[in-house]
């Protein structure tokens, strides 16, 4: 499986013990920082924060890097687009209509760094946070909007369940693929329309099984007395701890130093 976002990996690290709200806010701040960055010193800071987070999480680097493989195509695509279609700057290489400029190279390196640190940091956060904790955090962020009619509990329940079923459905997709392959189905040949058509033998069984699962799951939830958010208590109420305070402090320093590098140096 190439997708690491949405999976949980237990190592009992400091990051696992942090409040999910703090982690989500951190992710948001981190991403803002990445987009703020424009010099290689800034990228140095951004990358060292990522490296620190990976080290703290005790998650094998290979697993986090795997997350990149799933989006390798998008990554490659943006890099290529930027290399070939940036026209400003000094020409480094020219052949026929292909012209590569130093600005283009610089831009694509930046985009590459930005996208990959974003994805890796998101992986770190999701790998260290259970689905339920994540959904709880989202619910608590949405709660203030409940007065405006935002169904905070329902949204969080939907997220929990979708995330919980991602690994199950991926396993199932793999089995369907094997079953159709052994009936001689081919999925990667022909033009776009033919390819799209050849996906039907995969998608239809997966859809039908998802509906069936949804049906069983709703019965099972009802049988366990589920009836929406009203009157419900929480097993794990979110509470900020000392480590979360440290994290908030760290976020401040992170943004502060990026600003410093950007506007002072």
């Amino acid at each position, binding site marked *: 499986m190439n997708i690491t976002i949405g999976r949980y990996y237990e190592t009992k690290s400091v990051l696992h013990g942090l409040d999910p709200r703090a982690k989500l806010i951190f992710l948001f701040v981190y991403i803002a920082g990445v987009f703020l960055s424009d010099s290689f010193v800034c990228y140095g800071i951004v990358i060292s924060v990522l490296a620190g987070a990976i080290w703290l999480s005790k998650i094998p680097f290979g697993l986090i890097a795997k997350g990149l493989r799933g989006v390798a195509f998008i990554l490659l695509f943006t890099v290529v687009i930027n290399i070939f279609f940036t026209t400003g700057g000094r020409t480094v290489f020219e052949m026929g209509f292909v012209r590569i400029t130093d600005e283009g190279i610089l831009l694509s390196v930046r985009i590459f760094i930005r996208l990959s640190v974003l994805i890796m940091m998101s992986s770190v956060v999701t790998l260290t946070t259970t689905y339920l904790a994540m959904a709880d955090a989202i619910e608590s962020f949405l709660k203030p909007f409940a007065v405006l009619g935002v169904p905070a509990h329902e949204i969080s329940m939907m997220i929990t369940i979708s995330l919980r079923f991602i690994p199950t459905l991926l396993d199932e997709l793999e089995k369907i693929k094997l079953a159709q392959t052994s009936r001689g189905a081919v999925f990667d040949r022909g033009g776009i329309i033919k390819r799209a058509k050849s996906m039907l033998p995969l998608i239809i069984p997966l859809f039908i099984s998802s509906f069936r699962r949804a049906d069983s799951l709703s019965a099972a939830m009802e049988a*366990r007395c589920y009836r929406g958010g009203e009157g419900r208590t929480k097993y794990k109420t979110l509470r900020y701890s000392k480590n979360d305070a440290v994290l908030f402090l760290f976020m401040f320093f992170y943004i502060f130093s990026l600003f410093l590098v950007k506007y002072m140096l």
Partner: protein
Amino acid sequence: MKDNIISIKNVKFSYGENAPAAVDGVSLDIAEGETVCILGHNGSGKSTLGKLMNALLAPDEGEVWVMGKSTTGEDIWEIRRSVGMVFQNPDDQLVASLTDEDIAFGLENIGLPPEEMDERIDFALDSVGMTEFRHSPIDRLSLGQKQKIAVAGILALRPKCIVLDEATAMLDPKGRRDVCNTVFRLNSIYGITVVMITHFIDEAALCDKIYIMEQGRIVMGGKRQEVLPDTAGLKAFGISPPFFTDIAVRLGFDGGLYSAEEVAGKIADRICRPYTESGNTAPEDKRENIIEIRDLYFAYDKEPVLKGINIDVKEGSFTSVIGHTGSGKSTLMRTLNGLYSPIGGNVYFRGKSISDYEDIKRRIALVFQNPDHQLFEETVIKDVMFGALNMGLSHDKARELAEEALVAVGFPKDKYESSPFELSGGEKKRAAIAGILVMQPEVLVLDEPGAGLDTGGRRDIADCIERLKKERNLTVISVTHSMEDAAEYSDNIVVLCGGRVLKQAAPMEIFRQSEELEKAGLDLPKTAKLRSCLEKKGIRLPDNILSADALVDCLRKRMS
């Protein structure tokens, strides 16, 4: 008399106005602390009856009372709390990603104060023997363990009654035993009423009372000691009676609930010619090898799952591959036709490496466990044609082959144009096999062909495969959990354990000694169990007697 915890009075229920009644006039009382089994085929209405018991469904007619409260009244939440329900597929009922968070789900729903939850979670995990998995990711548990977590999730709500809706159907024999033991322990320690909805007669035999359902009605029922010995009655409703009881009745003894030892004892008292001439050995198999697996290694990650497999499969043979979950059976099947590439060793088909054949997936064709993973077309016939069309055959030729294949598997003719999603479990299985057969394979590989079917359905599919093998001169390789099927149908058995071949031999040789099987964590088939009990009493039967019918015939001749 104890109070009735559940009381069902003349209940009728149907899914939709024009649908036939799923439950058609059932009355049933279940006393507190009892263990009750609802036994029936798939589609007999037993699961619907279960859902009526905890107010997931409301009856169209009649009434269901749970602890004196009607399920159509205001108290359904109280009822659902008292009558917990465990469903068939553990993956479709667990909500959270960690065990304790999942068990807490029900507690959160009933609004229990968070301070009290840990105690309840500890209690629930302890009761199902899963304390060490308190904070485990559910992904990593086996199906049996997941199902025990589902039981714990119900238990935390402190129910008076647990309904198991085919909760063991998807588990392997070990997981099944484990879940059953857990539930019955809860009954004996805490007096929790157990309602077991199942099609396994061996599970029914654990319950105090047994009710048999067919077409929405309870057609037979009463105490275990009354129902099970009535083998003729059970058979009339298509239910195979308990094995040893059935043997005893067929040999002319009184019906009763017997163990292998008891039946062996009864036979020993009446036997006239106790000793057989000599133990005969299997004749030498002179057929050509069609598949040779040599030193095969396979790994998903670093740790190999298959560690040096060597297997010979003779042309026209029926090979059963047995082994517990995780022994590498399914993985091995997928390396046979190149779906998975080995990291070492090779598979040879008719003397040549499978990579030398372009059409090896057609020649060695795999039928997967779950037909839902392959059926996708609008109609059955179109779906079956899929494989033939992929081979590049014309539409007409594909249709001709598809019809042939459907006839060969005994698929009902009037359903060729039906949607594959409206079929029964057995019909889906047949359509799936036909979908493979249409490619005209030389070797048919089946991954647990009986999975998900009830006893009758399993039997039908096993017979169907046996017939196909003869008619089409196929070589069959079948992965199975059922020792009985392996003993009865195959002429070659491969015992897998931990990614290695523990033994490969003819059934009579495999089942003569139980050591290898025990090492692999497998049971003896019931015929072999009875034989070994007889042997202890000095009665030796010829080695080639492996099916129940042959056993009964042979014993009849020797008894006065």
